[in-house]
C-alpha cells in the first residue's frame, strides 16, 4: 500500500471520529441534568460509530460516487467515507429544512442520491435494496457496484440469508460487509450465532467469504479491494466480515452494564494505533497528524454551524413528500 493511500485512510478516519465526537457533544449538551432522550437540538436515538472507522474507510476507499452504499442505524462513518454531503447530513441529523431529507428522516434515514447512499433503521433490511441497485448497475454501462453494510447481529435475520442467496444466484455486483463489533446491543455474538464467523456462511450461499481481524484498516483495505474488484469484473458478490470495535454504547444513553471488558476498550482504539504506525513508518511527519485533526475539526464545526443555522421545518409542511 502506498503512503498516499494510507494517509487518505487516516484522514477519513480522523474526520469520522472528529464528527462523532462533535455529534456526541451536541447530542448531550442540552439533555442535562438527567438524560431525556426526546430533549434538545438532536432528539431521538443516536448510534455513533466511534471505533468502527477502519471498516468504512477501508471499504469506501475503493468506491466511486456512482457506486451505491446502503448502511445501518449506525451510518455516519460510512456516509462520511463515501462522500455524503457533510453539511446537509448534519442538518438532517439536527432535523432541519436544509438537511438531506428536509428534516424528515433524521440520523437513521440519510439519503444522498448524488453518491447513491442510503441507510435504514431496520436490521438487515438495507441488504435487499442494495441488490436492486446492483441489479440496475449490472444492466447499465460501466462496472458500478453496490456495497451493503450490516452487523453481526443482523446476520441472523432472514433478509441477510435471502439476500446472499439471490445475489449469488443472479451474480450481482454487490459486496456484503458485516461489521462484527461483538455486540448486538447487549447480546454478544456467541450468544446469538451458532458458528464462530459469518465469513463461513458465505460458502453456503455460493460466494467467497473472508474475515478480517484486528480492526486493521490496511487489512480491511486489501480485503475490500479484492471483493470490490471481483464485483466490478462481473464475478459476482462476496462477503467480508470485519472484526471491529464499538467504542461507545449501542446508542447514546446506553449504560453498557452488560459489557465486562469496558475498561479495556479505550486501549483498543484503532485510530491512535494507526497514527502511531504511520508516524513510525514516516508517513505522518511531525505536526502532520495535528494538522489533519485541526482540518477535520474546522470542517466538522462548519457543518454543525450550517445545521444550526438551517430553519426548523414548518409544521404546515408536515404532510409534504408522501407522494411524488
Amino acid at each position: 500500500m502506498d503512503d498516499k493511500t494510507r494517509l487518505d485512510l487516516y484522514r477519513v478516519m480522523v474526520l469520522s471520529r472528529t464528527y462523532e465526537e462533535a455529534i456526541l457533544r451536541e447530542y448531550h449538551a442540552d439533555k442535562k441534568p438527567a438524560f431525556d432522550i426526546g430533549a434538545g437540538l438532536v432528539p431521538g436515538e443516536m448510534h455513533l460509530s466511534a471505533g468502527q472507522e477502519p471498516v468504512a474507510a477501508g471499504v469506501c476507499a475503493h468506491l466511486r460516487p456512482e457506486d451505491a452504499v446502503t448502511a445501518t442505524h449506525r451510518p455516519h462513518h460510512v456516509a462520511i467515507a463515501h462522500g455524503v454531503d457533510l453539511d446537509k447530513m448534519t442538518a438532517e441529523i439536527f432535523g432541519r429544512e436544509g438537511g438531506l431529507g428536509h428534516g424528515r428522516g433524521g440520523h437513521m434515514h440519510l439519503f444522498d442520491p448524488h453518491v447513491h447512499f442510503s441507510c435504514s433503521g431496520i436490521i438487515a433490511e438495507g441488504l435487499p435494496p442494495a441488490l436492486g441497485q446492483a441489479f440496475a448497475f449490472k444492466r447499465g454501462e460501466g462496472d458500478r457496484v453496490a456495497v451493503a453494510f450490516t452487523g453481526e447481529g443482523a446476520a441472523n435475520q432472514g433478509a441477510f440469508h435471502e439476500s446472499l442467496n439471490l445475489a449469488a444466484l443472479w451474480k450481482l455486483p454487490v459486496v456484503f460487509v458485516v461489521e462484527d463489533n461483538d455486540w448486538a446491543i447487549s447480546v454478544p455474538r456467541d450468544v446469538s450465532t451458532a458458528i464462530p464467523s459469518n465469513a463461513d456462511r458465505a460458502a453456503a450461499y455460493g460466494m467467497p467469504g473472508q474475515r478480517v481481524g484486528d480492526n486493521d484498516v490496511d487489512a480491511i483495505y486489501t480485503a475490500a479491494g479484492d471483493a470490490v474488484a471481483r464485483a466490478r469484473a462481473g464475478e459476482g458478490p462476496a462477503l467480508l466480515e470485519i472484526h471491529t470495535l464499538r467504542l461507545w454504547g449501542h446508542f447514546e444513553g446506553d449504560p453498557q452494564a452488560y459489557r465486562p471488558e469496558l475498561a479495556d476498550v479505550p486501549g483498543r482504539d484503532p485510530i491512535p494505533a494507526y497514527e502511531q504506525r504511520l508516524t513510525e513508518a514516516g508517513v505522518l511527519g511531525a505536526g502532520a497528524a495535528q494538522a489533519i485533526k485541526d482540518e477535520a475539526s474546522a470542517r466538522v464545526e462548519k457543518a454543525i454551524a450550517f445545521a444550526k443555522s438551517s430553519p426548523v421545518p414548518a409544521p404546515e409542511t408536515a404532510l409534504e413528500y408522501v407522494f411524488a
Partner: protein
Amino acid sequence: MSATETTTASGAQAGQAERRLTTARAIAEGIAQEMERDPGVVVLGEDVGAYGGIFGATGGLLERFGPDRVLDTPISETAFIGLGIGAAVEGMRPVVELMFADFFGVCMDQIYNHMAKIHFESGGNVKVPMVLTMAAGGGYSDAEQHSQCLWGTFAHLPGMKVVVPSNPADAKGLMISAIRDDNPVVYVFHKGVMGLPWMAKNPRSIAHVPEEAYETPIGKAAVAREGTDATVVTLSLSVHHALDVADKMAKQDGVDLEVIDLRSLVPLDTETVLSSVARTGRLLVVDEDYQSFGLSGEIAARVAETDPGLLRAPLRRVAVPDVPIPYARSLEQAVLPTPDRIEAAVHDLLKA
C-alpha cells in the same frame, strides 16, 4: 363515459371493433405495452416467467421479452421485493409480483418501511417508481391463508398508492398508470375477476379492452351503474355482485341502485362517493376485506365527518365479519359478501 357515446354491452365505443379479453390478459397486455415503450420496465416474482403468473397476470411476457426482463425469483419475497425497490431507486420501473396478498407477512418490512417510506424520509429526493402486484380474494375454497383481500391494510399505511381494478379495461389502464406513476403502487387483482378458465367466472371478467395503451386515472372512482334509490360503494369482485344484484332488484323490486366502483383506495375518491350519497341519501359499502378497522369504516367516517345529515338512514356494510375465511364451502359462502347478503342489506337499507 358520456351519455352521448354509444357503447356495446361489453364496453367498446361505437365504431371501434370489439375486442374482448379476460382481466388477466388485459393486465398482461398493459405490462407488455409498457415494456415495449420503456426498457426500464422489468417483471419479477415467483412463477411469472414460463408459468405466466399463477393467476395469468404475466402471461406471454417471457416469450415476448425474454428472461432478461421477465425473471422468476426464488421464494425470497424480502429479497426480491427489496431488489425491486433498489432498482426503482436507480431509475428502473419494476413490476414485482407478490403471489398472494396473504404472503405479505414474510416481506412487509420492505413494503411498508422501505418501499412506502423512502420518498418521504428523503424529503422527496429519492423516488421509488415500482408496482407491487398481488392476487387476492376468495370464493373457491382456498381457506384462511390464501383467500384474503387485505387492501385495507395496505391502504392504511402511508406512502403507497393502492389500486384495485374490477374489470378488464380498468385493469389494463390502471396497470399502465401504475407503471408510469413515480410512486410505489400496490396493484391488487381479485382472482375471481381474472376470467381464468380454471375458476368459476363472472361474465364481467371478460369484456372489451381497447387495443392501444391508455391510462385509467389513479384516485378516481367510476360510476358503474347510475341510480337513484341507494348508493352501493364497492370494489373488485364485489362490483360484479353489486351489478348483478342491481339488475335483479331493478326487475323484481323496482329498485334503482347506484353502484360506485372505487378502483383506487389510495388516493380515495371521496368526492364521487359524497356526491352520490348526497343524491341518494342511502349508503351500503360492500367490501370483501375484513369488516372492522378497514375500508368500510373509512367510507363511513368520510361521510360522517363531512355531513352525517346526508344519510336518510343508517349506513350498512357487507364485509367479511372479522373471522378467518373458513375452508368448508358452506361456511366460506356464509362469510363472503355474496349477492344474497348484498341484496338483503339493500332491503334493510331501504326500509330503514
